[in-house]
């Protein structure tokens, strides 16, 4: 679905590479989380996927990037947008209509979706984002989390195969952030959308995504299933990523020979680990 091979990029007017030799692949149906400090190249990586780099942002690009079988260098971001939906941190800036259903209509109208299909697409998108009940509400009366879901619905209506989200919960409180992620999980599991999401909240990210990519200084330093990435405590610390405490605990227990499994990814697994450790120490 996404094939990025040996991509380097530096923005115009800045000799420092924003990305250096990044190679990343994501298969259909993946839920990939990207994490790292600010300035690590996370946003630039998402811009490579939706084609904004190098089409919108000028600079020096090398390497190969293909999304949905299309080389990003040869297709405009608009063409790519038919298979890649993009969402940004700034919630207000990406909403254009006064009412929720108009917002969803905007993209459908632009891409010339046939008239008889439009109504069903609007309903599908609102249902997929879990906001069918907000359909006729004025956008200005919604909360931040609800607005971000409207933005998600507006993208979902275009039926993208891939969704790229650059810190979609950056302006949201923890609870609204979770709801946004629950919506993404639903899109991923039920509708098979491949999702790439940049996120700072590591605990939440680990809970929802299936794969994790860690960026540091423009390089991709770790990539793989969540559990295997979390094992690399030192590299994560170098990248400025706080690993979940339960992972630290698992690694410590393993050092002391009290536990030999994978670091737990959820609460039941953590409980199992604790039980094992307690038994082992008795």
């Amino acid at each position, binding site marked *: 679905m996404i094939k990025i091979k040996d991509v380097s990029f530096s923005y115009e007017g800045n000799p420092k590479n924003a990305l250096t030799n990044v190679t990343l692949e994501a298969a259909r149906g993946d839920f990939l989380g990207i994490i790292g400090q600010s300035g690590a190249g996370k946003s630039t990586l998402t811009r490579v996927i939706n084609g904004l780099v190098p089409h*919108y942002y000028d600079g020096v690009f090398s390497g190969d990037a293909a999304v949905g079988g299309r080389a990003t260098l040869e297709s405009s971001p608009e063409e790519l947008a038919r298979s890649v939906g993009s969402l940004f941190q*700034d919630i207000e800036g990406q909403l254009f*209509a006064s009412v929720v259903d108009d917002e969803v209509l905007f993209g459908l109208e632009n*891409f010339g979706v046939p008239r008889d299909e439009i109504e069903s697409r609007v309903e599908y998108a609102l249902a997929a984002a879990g906001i069918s009940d907000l359909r006729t509400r004025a956008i200005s009366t919604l909360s931040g989390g609800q607005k971000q879901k409207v933005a998600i619905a507006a993208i979902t209506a275009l039926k993208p195969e891939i969704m790229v989200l650059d810190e979609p919960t950056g302006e949201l409180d923890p609870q609204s952030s979770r709801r946004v992620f629950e919506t993404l999980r639903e899109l991923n599991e039920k509708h098979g959308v491949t999702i790439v999401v940049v996120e700072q909240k590591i605990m939440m990210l680990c809970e929802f995504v299936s794969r994790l990519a860690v960026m540091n200084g423009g390089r991709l330093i770790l990539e793989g299933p969540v559990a295997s990435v979390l094992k690399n405590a030192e590299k994560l610390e170098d990248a400025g990523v706080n690993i979940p405490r339960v992972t630290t605990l698992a690694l410590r227990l393993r050092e002391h020979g009290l536990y030999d499994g994978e670091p737990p990814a959820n609460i039941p697994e953590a409980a199992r680990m604790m039980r094992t450790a307690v038994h082992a120490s008795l």
Partner: protein
Amino acid sequence: MKSFLDYVPGDSALHRLNPLTKLALAFGLCTSCFLTRNHALVVGVMLLNLFQAAIAGVLDRSLKMLSALVKLSVVLFLAQLFFVREGRILLALPFGLYITDAGLSFSLLFVLRLVAATMPLAMMLSITRMSDISNALVRGTGIPYKYAFVLTTAIRLIPLFADEMAEIMEAQIARGVEFDTKNFFKKLRLILPLCVPLLISSVRKIEDGAISAELRGFNLRNRNSGYKRYPFGVGDAAVLALCALVMAASVMI
């Protein structure tokens, strides 16, 4: 943050009018206010506005706006009053100031016009969806979508800028800047330097918005892209007739 330009959903007869009719009505009423020299007619337009607001269920908002405008008007009225030196002197004041009948009449007309002409557009915006305005404009008048979009985006950005400004001001207040001063000129001097950060953050915001619109196929849009149709009905004809009547009256009276 709620703004007085935000759309208020509803299903009143006014909400259901063709967006172009609403636009024409708003501009028609504004123009009438400036065409006429008759105080009563301007007051009539004002009342008509309030009547519309009542039908559309946004009366409380209109009254709030009216009271804000009236406060502003008092200041403007007083400022204007002393500048007209013609006419019969009604009241002589020290420092060579005096109030004349012409001055009184002119100043009154001036502020009445201001109040009555401000309301129709704000009223129109609170009962018409942004996308309906731009789509109906594109369909009905044939202007390119880009221009219609610029118009609606400009309106949409006003509350966003206000939010942004409030945020910047709060940040400055937190650092001890005295924005709550009663002295208007002092306040102005404090606010002016904030225009730069406001401009920068706004430009950034607009840039993000532009990217987002383009990724949703903004450039592919053409005149026939709009999904909704905006037929003209009996109601539209009646409203346009009323509007024409008011305009005719404003020219003749």
